[in-house]
């Protein structure tokens, strides 16, 4: 087999973790040091707090009242992360027979159930032959209070 004469550059692995430097943004007076200078911090960034992986997180809005007992109301905005493994007990956005639904996931002993958080709704047991998929795991609910 022929190969290129000059060897191609070999890959170098760069760690994914970013290193942050804290920067003090104002000029320091020559006489008295600012008493706040030692406590400089970046302002809280909600994107950073609420979103673990921006490439895999989506915003979807709630329709219906099947989850009101845990405070998820119609019109609330859910953050849904597709990169998380859906575990027993997670609130998930599921696709059942080609339809979206938000429910609590029950996964025990080979049985999958979708449990509503509203006593007026019945628990759904996923039957054999039904098409079921977890679209993503709900990580936060943004509920407007003002």
């Amino acid at each position, binding site marked *: *087999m*022929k*190969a*290129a*004469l*000059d*060897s*191609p*550059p*070999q*890959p*170098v*692995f*760069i760690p*994914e973790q970013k290193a942050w430097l804290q920067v003090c943004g104002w000029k320091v007076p020559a006489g008295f040091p600012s008493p706040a200078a030692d406590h400089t911090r970046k302002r809280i960034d909600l994107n950073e707090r609420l979103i673990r992986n921006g*490439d*895999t997180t*989506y*915003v*979807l*809005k*709630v*329709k219906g009242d099947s989850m009101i007992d845990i405070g998820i109301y119609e019109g609330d*905005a*859910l953050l849904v992360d*597709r*990169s998380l493994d859906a575990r027993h007990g997670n609130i998930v*956005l599921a*696709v059942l027979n*080609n*339809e*979206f*639904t*938000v429910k609590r996931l029950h996964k025990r002993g080979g049985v999958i159930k979708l449990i509503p958080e509203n006593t007026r709704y019945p628990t759904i047991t996923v039957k054999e032959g039904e098409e079921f998929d977890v*679209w993503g795991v709900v990580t936060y609910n943004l509920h407007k209070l003002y």
Partner: protein
Amino acid sequence: MGSPVQQLALVDCNNFYVSCERVFRPDLARVPMVVLSNNDGCVVSRSNEARALGIKMGQPWFECKELAEQHSILAFSSNYALYADLSNRVMSILSNFAPRHEVYSIDECFVDLTGIPKLREVSYAMRARVGQWTGIPVCVGIGPTKTLAKLANHVAKKHPRSRGVFNYNALTPAQKANLLQHIPVEEVWGVGRKLTKKLARHGIETVHDLQQAHVPTLRAEFGVVMEKIQRELQEIPCIELREIQPDRQQIIVSRSFGNMVTELPVLQDALSAFVANACAKLRAQSSHAAVIQVFLQTNRFRKDLPQYMPSLAVPLPYPTNDSLGVNRWAAALCERMFRPDYQYKKAGIVLCEISPVTQRQGDLLEPQIPCNERLMKALDALNQRYGRGTVKVSTQGAYRDWQMRQERKSPNYTTAWDDVPLV
């Protein structure tokens, strides 16, 4: 021993635009559907179901109407905001698999997996992860050169047994020859319909024929580009992985109008939108243009109407990326060319002679007109934050006649708060 064989993967999204439309519409999972080009003209993406019903790529939609009604084929207008966002997500996920990669188009990315252990597992993981994390199905083709990686991707797409991943490098020489003998030459990257015909006249019909063709004859008849393609098929890399896209040498923004336009102010209004768009691109790459060209076109398919397709280019007094300044020139050129009594179907601008802003040359005679740098920065920031077209040059957007027809567009699910999907 020479250097190790390159393990170059081409990751290609399946029916990308259709797949994007399905991410937030699980009810469309197995529905025959297509996405249409600007002005809802032609089919630019088909679901497998639509393909099976006989809808062709690039086919004008009006030709499909009957078939569409018979089989309830759904059609969507292009939703570029959605496709761009999902494309960025796919590319970002892929970039984590290997340090060297090249985004080749909105739905294709080369990833250099050379030297990465457990190649087989990694390729399947790449496909699975993009699928789970974005909802977009992809196929992975691996080869020693870009051309063979692309061909391997074609095999991965076509043969269900590959489960979406095909590695050309893993074949024995006999298997390779057998495979290439069964793929028509038109599937090779860079070999279009015209070249396929010409190659056929030389008895070259399969990829294997091209790989084995007589080198001097091939070069004499088809030139160096075809020779490069042949060498790539012979596993000799000739097309480099471009990790950084070179800056654009020319920026063209043009559009067909939804309705025919007959008035000068409407044309100027459309042009100012194109100027704003083109200048924003210039500013994004920190460069400026020295020449502007404006063109107008009547509808060449309407043989019953008088035809007029003028074009005018002028050098700008100094290289600039200022929307306001360039817009004055676009408006003036348009006025120079405009003739009443014609129905215009299309207009556009071309910015050329593009260079980095740092190379500005002063002019002794032309006074240096300040180019509204801070104004343009503020304009870009506002439009990025609140959506394209929030702040415009004043002639832009007063008339609506020229805007694209997009009657079947889906919501901007991921880029506009009011369009967020309901679940």
